[in-house]
């Protein structure tokens, strides 16, 4: 569904409102090709065309929400939406006033488009399988247009559309010996893919060495940006959400209370001005370009959505409680110096399946996965069998943090649970004096 069709549908739905009613209409649509790959061949391929309409009907201090799939045929969708609107209106007669109802009462407008024409998915997959000949490649190609819209009876009109691709894959040598890569963007360039595959082949050559088995204990380690992303994902899980702070559920409670700190070189921001996600919220508010979440090791600001803002008397600065465009400031360690500074320890390419081990102490457990190497005297010696870590972020980002790299990677989220994600992370690598391996 395009912008004009959505605005037209919204205007016709709003035409049926009563004088005391407001309506916010939202759209989440995608037109995507998905190709699963295994053994460098197509495992499962297809296309998805979806469009979900959200309605939030407000009357006085009451509100009720609904959503439905749209067919794309105006009259049919209008009938469906009007039916839902009638149900919401009936519902408002049975729900009490909502003390935390909060929406923008000022009309606003935005229109952001990222990318133009998606690459031909079939041709790109054919390119990939040829370029990766000889590799045991497994992963997912996803491409197409993602659209988010907002229109209200008050006059809000917002549109964000991106046309992109995201190829997320790994190459296996045997068993769980593998290296991982991703290539995402707006313009498909075969040369970039070929370079990434060449780097993977080099990684697999090292992977061919006998795996080193290490015992539980504390090890020096370098966490590559993709591994740091897993730690940022954990912080996103209640670390910055205002409600989790005010109800003392945040895993950063000791940081907020001043009992613990991160290293002063740790500054974490929500960087909405990266432009990859919509700048507007579903309630019509405009998000600031940046919010400093961790400021030189100390807690900065929470992310505050409209409902929490009303409940706790704060200003809206986010669509939700988790960062969608997180950034960790870079440090001063040159990439070329990482192995030398690490000297002897673990080079961890990816972490996997993290969870809070004890949220009261920001303690996280998870696994090493894909390219993880044993480094000795600044040289990569051997792959390492997967290991479980169990350690506090107050150590990994605090008293055991030794350096952050100057270079940062922009990592596009490959997740597709609720449609293709537009989240991203801009992260350096992190050198730590020790990470606790438990199993």
């Amino acid at each position, binding site marked *: 569904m395009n912008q004009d069709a959505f605005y037209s549908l919204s205007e016709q739905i709003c035409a049926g409102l009563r004088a005391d009613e407001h309506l916010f209409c939202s759209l989440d649509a995608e037109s995507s090709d998905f*190709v699963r790959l295994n053994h460098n061949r197509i495992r499962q391929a297809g296309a*998805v065309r979806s469009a979900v309409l959200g309605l939030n009907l407000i009357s006085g201090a009451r509100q009720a929400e609904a959503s439905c799939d749209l*067919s*794309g045929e105006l009259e049919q969708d209008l009938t469906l939406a009007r039916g839902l609107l009638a149900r919401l209106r009936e519902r408002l007669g049975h729900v009490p006033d909502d003390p935390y109802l909060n929406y923008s009462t000022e009309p606003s407008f935005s229109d952001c488009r990222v990318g133009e024409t998606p690459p031909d998915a079939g041709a790109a997959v054919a390119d990939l399988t040829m370029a990766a000949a000889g590799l045991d490649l497994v992963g997912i190609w996803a491409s197409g247009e993602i659209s988010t819209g907002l229109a209200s009876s008050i006059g809000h009109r917002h549109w964000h559309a991106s046309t992109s691709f995201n190829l997320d894959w790994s190459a296996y040598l045997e068993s*769980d010996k593998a290296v991982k890569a991703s290539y995402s963007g707006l313009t498909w360039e075969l040369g970039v893919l070929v370079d990434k595959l060449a780097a993977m082949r080099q990684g697999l050559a090292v992977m061919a060495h006998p795996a080193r088995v290490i015992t539980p204990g504390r090890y020096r380690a370098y966490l590559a940006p993709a591994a740091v992303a897993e730690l940022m994902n954990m912080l996103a899980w209640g670390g910055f959400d205002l409600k989790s702070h005010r*109800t003392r559920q945040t895993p950063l409670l000791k940081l907020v209370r001043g009992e613990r700190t991160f290293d002063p070189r740790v500054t974490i921001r929500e960087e909405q001005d990266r432009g990859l996600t919509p700048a507007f919220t579903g309630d019509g508010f405009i998000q600031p370009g940046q919010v400093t979440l961790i400021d030189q090791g100390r807690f900065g600001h929470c992310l505050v959505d409209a409902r929490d803002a009303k409940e706790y008397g704060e200003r809206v600065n986010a669509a939700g409680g988790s960062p969608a465009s997180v950034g960790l400031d870079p440090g001063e360690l040159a990439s070329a110096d990482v192995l030398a500074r690490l000297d002897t320890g673990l080079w961890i390419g990816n972490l996997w399946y993290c969870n809070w081990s004890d*949220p*009261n102490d920001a303690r996280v457990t998870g696994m090493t996965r894909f390219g993880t190497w044993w480094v000795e005297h600044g040289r990569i010696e051997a792959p390492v069998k997967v290991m479980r870590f169990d350690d506090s972020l107050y150590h990994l980002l605090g008293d055991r943090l030794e350096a952050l790299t100057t270079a940062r990677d922009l990592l596009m989220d490959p997740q597709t649970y609720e449609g293709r994600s537009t989240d991203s992370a801009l992260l350096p690598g992190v050198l730590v004096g020790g990470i606790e391996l438990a199993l």
Partner: protein
Amino acid sequence: MDRLHQIAERFAAAAPACDYWTLRLVDEESEHLAVRQGVVEPSALGASLGAMVTLVVGSGVGYGATSDLSPAGLRAAADQALGWAARHAWLGVFDAAQYPRSALRADYRGPVAEPWETMSLPDKLLLLQEANQALALDDRIVDWSAWLAYRRVQQLLVTSDGGHIAQVWTYVSPGLAAVANVGSQTQRRHGGGADWSQQGGLERVSAAGLLADAPRVAEEAIALLTAPECPRDTRDLVLTPGQMVLQIHESIGHPLELDRILGDERNYAGTSFVTPEMFGTYRYGSDLLNVTFDPTVPGELVSGAADDDGTPSRREYLIRDGILERPLGGVLSQSRSGLPGTANARACAWDRPPIDRMANINLEPGEGTLDALIAGVELGILMDTNRSWSIDDSRNKFQFGCELGRLIVDGELKGLVRNPGYRGISAEFWRRLDGVGGPATCEVRGVQNCGKGEPNQSVYVGHATPPARFRSVAVFGGGE
């Protein structure tokens, strides 16, 4: 369902030329009600309707999914499926001649004693308000909420071979949460059905004890604040059904998925320590370990007539007397691997294709009571209600945490311990199983958030299980 039949008839009348097609129509409605700290949260109604067209042409297979169910919309989806079938024919990892075909005609309608509509919205909100009041015991409870979720899924699968499978699943899922805090110590408890999902109607509310459970949930959250940390050592472990669900799910269900063993999931959900040659001989656990794939248990989350490929569901042993017998794989994975399997090709919605999933994976009961299991422990811990889960990509090295622990000394339950956790290795852990509760202790539960697949899919999975006892397990508590 009538609407779905009409759409299917229109599609069949103008079906594309191909060797085999399926049309899977999914009509889903949902509602979510919640009251937090005595304030009614915005209620949410959901309606979803869409279709997936799958086409087999020669050696290729492709799909197209759309919410445009007009003849033109379905034709466009079929055209996209045709395009991808052609690519698959050229570059596919298997020959689509292996793709499962179904001529099954079957119906399933899940049990509902008290339909969702029989209780008014004000009465539902009143019930949730009463639960809220019961949760707010004192100032140490800093957040509390109660909720009711309703979901009904109607699915019609028709095929060019005459297959016609109509299934209706209904779920009413109540739940409670209480958060207690003093200083920098915060503890949570869930109950009232929060981790006790089944098919059914409003009868699930009283069965799960939404209202009756509230005082216990809040009292335990408060008590955990001052409980000692769980000890860090090696001792015997008794897991309640609430935690056994997760233990079975992660360290038996996922490792036995055939698409993992075939390598499809290696880039995301992972592979498996289980290899094809293990089936028939590998000792997965002690003699007490009997695990079934069982779609026949009334009310269990994934009980039904057939999977999303149209394969009829039937009960199968996966592990018998500790020996591994059969993987979890649909007909396509069975054909690709040469192994037997189960009817478990499932999709989470109309916009995702079927892949190998758990359905109902159950630990068969043993003998005796929970008290008898505890009586057999000299020094141990009982753990209840999962709160943390992590396992490696081969589904071997795991670490799980629970909301509540209770010491066991000389065969008797003693005081609470907080932040209890344990870790182990799947391939060894189940061999430490030396007690499984009898039929009277078995509880039909499951999870509603099993994630897997590329593109990603989240599905419901059923697990019926008694409590169980394990010898000499590494346990630990909280702290840095």
